[in-house]
């Protein structure tokens, strides 16, 4: 796999394309939207400064970099911030559902939540998600199905206001 450096325009394009999904991904570790944003910004600022070589699949690099930076940020925190603000906005305005979705995503195994975030909010195909994660298409697809099944256990679309948490 060849490495290359990115121009500022490339970096900005990647930010537009992957920024929101990366914030969701960082929220999985930080549980705080502002800190997740800071983590993502830190990664892109480093890219903007130049001198960083990224592989042919920059999305994979970005997710790895965000994960590492978010874990570092989490380690440096005295304690985890309470989950007060979601990194999702529900179109119907259901804030509780948005918070519950974030919590459910954080309960998924890491590799499963990653592929869901890449596919649903990163707009990537399963092929692209597999390449970014460095796994085969079959592996990515099975992770994705498992993740959706687990999320469906938590959520059921009900009516115009969106989901409700399934009572166990």
């Amino acid at each position, binding site marked *: 796999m060849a490495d290359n450096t990115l121009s500022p325009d490339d970096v900005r394009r990647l930010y537009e394309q992957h*920024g*929101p999904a990366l914030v969701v991904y960082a929220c999985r570790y930080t549980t705080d939207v502002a800190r997740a944003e800071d983590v993502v*910004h830190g990664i892109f600022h480093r890219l*903007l*400064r130049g001198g960083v070589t990224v592989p042919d699949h920059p999305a994979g690099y970005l997710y790895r970099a965000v994960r590492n930076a978010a874990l570092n940020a989490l380690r440096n925190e005295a304690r985890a911030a309470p989950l007060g603000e979601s*990194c999702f*906005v529900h*179109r119907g305005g259901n804030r509780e*559902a948005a918070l519950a979705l974030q919590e459910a995503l954080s309960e998924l195994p890491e590799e499963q939540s990653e592929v869901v975030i890449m596919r*649903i909010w990163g707009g990537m195909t399963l092929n692209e998600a597999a390449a970014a994660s460095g796994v085969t298409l079959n592996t990515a697809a099975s992770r994705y199905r498992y993740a959706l099944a687990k999320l469906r256990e938590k959520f059921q679309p009900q009516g115009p206001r969106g989901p409700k948490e399934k009572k166990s």
Partner: protein
Amino acid sequence: MSDPEEQFEDFLREFEAVRPRALQQAPDPHLYYWGRFAAAAVLLLSCALSAWLVWRGQSSGSPAQRAALPLQSAEQSQPRHRSLISWTQLALRDPQSLDQELDAQSRIVLPRFNLPQSTLRVLAKE
């Protein structure tokens, strides 16, 4: 992919990821290093200038002048400031010394009345 899965995907897409704030321009690292270099250069120049000024001050003038300078400076830079009480005591104890002392002080801090060019000479006459 089955229909329920697609429906659930659509449902999940009802949740939009929060758009992060715009990416700010990162500071130019070259500018950063040039700034530090410039600050170091200014510091170095100011040190060199100070050292040069000190050296120049020490080396200016003839040896005789330089030899006389410390004595003159010592005389001028150490005026004997007396308090009002000590002036009074001196006047009572030794009026002649008081006159001498006042004369010495007048060369440093007080206008002299007894010089031909003094503008205060008129007052001295009165």
